């Protein structure tokens, strides 16, 4: 029964990973850039919440209501300035710039908050769980996060396919010069995409900060798990990202069941196996590159 529990916990963890990954996936899909600071953004969101909760007297559970809009605005501004400037050079520069920002952010957080772990304490809410049998425990909080991940991915899908702005984002992703010819300001569209990506990663960072501890050095792990979810699910497929997150979560929990030290390693091995056997991922689109 403990194996079944490991699989169920893995599926629940997949919700966190999918939430982390959808911003990464969106930025790559629209602008063709990999944001290497993505994991650190989630950590920064956690620290922003830590700073703002005493100031705003918002209940910890609702801290995302304050932090997510701040991140959306911050994402738009960062995209219109630094990221656009690097994008104007080439994708190579963008990669190095986001990596540089990641290292700067991590060390700045270390200087400001020390290397100690922090968490967003939501009290007894985290402890509620649904126990169908004695050995299986479904945390309501994790179920909520999985539900939020499904809602965010579904909303993103609907937004991209049904709304005018969503159509503009897809047009710019397909061919930004052509979109510009018909009057689209692609820089503004890039900014909107970045705002959405930053908002989702802030949500992910806060959700994970409520569930486990975070520290300035947690960023790279967030990035690697998000990236593995994207590649396992298939680059370019939003629902694939959810499946990828779940596959990664299950692999990690099964690894942890064998030996707690193998949790992260098991995820890496599944990722490398997918890369070896099915490099386009489980739901990957066939592309020419």
């Amino acid at each position: 029964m403990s194996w079944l529990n490991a699989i169920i916990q893995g599926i629940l963890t997949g919700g966190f990973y999918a939430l982390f990954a959808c911003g990464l996936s969106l930025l790559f899909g629209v602008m063709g850039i990999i944001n290497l600071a993505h994991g650190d953004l989630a950590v920064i969101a956690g620290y922003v919440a830590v700073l703002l909760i005493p100031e705003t007297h918002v209940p910890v559970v609702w801290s995302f209501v304050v932090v997510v809009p701040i991140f959306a605005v911050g994402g738009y501004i960062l995209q219109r300035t630094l990221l656009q400037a690097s994008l104007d050079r080439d994708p190579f520069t963008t990669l190095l710039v986001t990596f540089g920002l990641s290292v700067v952010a991590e060390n700045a957080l270390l200087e400001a908050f020390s290397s100690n772990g922090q968490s967003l304490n939501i009290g007894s809410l985290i402890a509620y769980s649904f126990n169908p049998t004695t050995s299986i425990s479904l945390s309501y909080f994790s179920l909520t996060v999985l539900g939020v991940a499904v809602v965010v991915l579904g909303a993103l899908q609907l937004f991209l396919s049904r709304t005018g702005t969503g159509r503009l984002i897809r047009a710019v992703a397909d061919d930004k010069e052509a979109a510009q010819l018909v009057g689209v300001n692609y820089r503004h569209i890039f900014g909107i995409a970045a705002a959405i990506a930053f908002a989702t990663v802030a949500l992910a960072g806060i959700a994970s900060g409520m569930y486990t501890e975070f520290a300035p050095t947690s960023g790279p792990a967030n990035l690697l798990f998000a990236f593995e979810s994207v590649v396992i699910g298939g680059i370019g497929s939003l629902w694939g990202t959810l499946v990828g997150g779940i596959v990664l979560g299950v692999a990690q929990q099964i690894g942890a069941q064998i030996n707690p030290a193998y949790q992260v390693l098991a995820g890496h091995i599944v990722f490398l196996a997918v890369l070896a056997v099915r490099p386009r991922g489980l739901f990957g689109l066939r592309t020419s590159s």
Partner: protein
Amino acid sequence: MTTGAAPVPPTAEAGSLPGVTRSARPTAWLGGLGVGVVVLLAFMPSIVSQADTSILLNFFILLTMSSMWNLLAGYAGMVSIGQQAFVGLGAYTVLVLADGGFSPVAAIPIAALVCAALSVPISLLVFRLRGGYFAIATWVVADAASLVISSIGSLGGGTGKPVPGMSGLSPKSFEQVTYWAALAVVVVAVGMTYALLRSRLGLVLAAVRDNEVGARSAGARVVTARRIVYLVAALGCGAAGALLAVSQLNVQPASVFNVQWSAEMIFVTMIGGIGTIEGPILGSVVFFLLQQNLAHEGAWYLIIFGALAVVIAIWAPRGLWGTATAKLRVQLFPVGYHVGRTRRRGRPGSAPPAPPAPPVASTA
């Protein structure tokens, strides 16, 4: 070389075509200068204090790593954030050999070769992804390597282990031996980079960088060239990791597999000047000056250095060396081709030489 048909450089054999030289200016004296610098550095342990020798040793290690990253990213267009995989594996190879009774210093070249061998299967996996995805995949491989090593109890697990086999040396001779080993590694690393870039492989890389489709259609084996560069970079980073193990006499997974190594390689190369051999040298000097001055400020040197790298990447992508020498066309390591002076070399009685062609931008 095994890089296949590379675009043949234009030669000045037919008629009065413009002459092609390796360098804009005669630079033979630079070779002598280089030998002089190396000889001077070799005597440093007897001249400067032990603390300064140790700084120089770490400078050589960083320069070796950054030269390798520069080769990867600056010449072959591959941004790896996982070179710490080879740093760590090199360090652990030294540990394993030293545990088996082998001399740690003699284990350095073996560790480098082990890393080169391991890079082949790794490249088969990570080369399936391009650009940013390649970058993160190399990082995953490094993290996986670190986790595997940490789970092996006989290698000290997560806390690491001291490297045996150097206790017979006096502190002075230990310092000298490790220093000379590091000097030898950095000279070989920079020399190898230089030789590689002047070979046919260097031509293939320059052609790919300028126009990948064109290079492919001219028959350049792009993937083979990239694979060779990845292997050489693993070799160099493995040697640097082996030096870390020998000089620190202790190996710890969290330290040798730290992504900070890749961060330092990247920042040094970006600041010094990516795509030039001189860039990482200048960048390493800047890095050490900054680190020494901010040694008591904790992580601030990395914050300042990272921010500087971001600013340079966007607004001065040629780096300090590239920006400073853009007008002067000085190259300490001439690896490009310059079309310049016209030489008459052809049938007797052919047309008189054309007036000297204006200098054209070099290919490197």
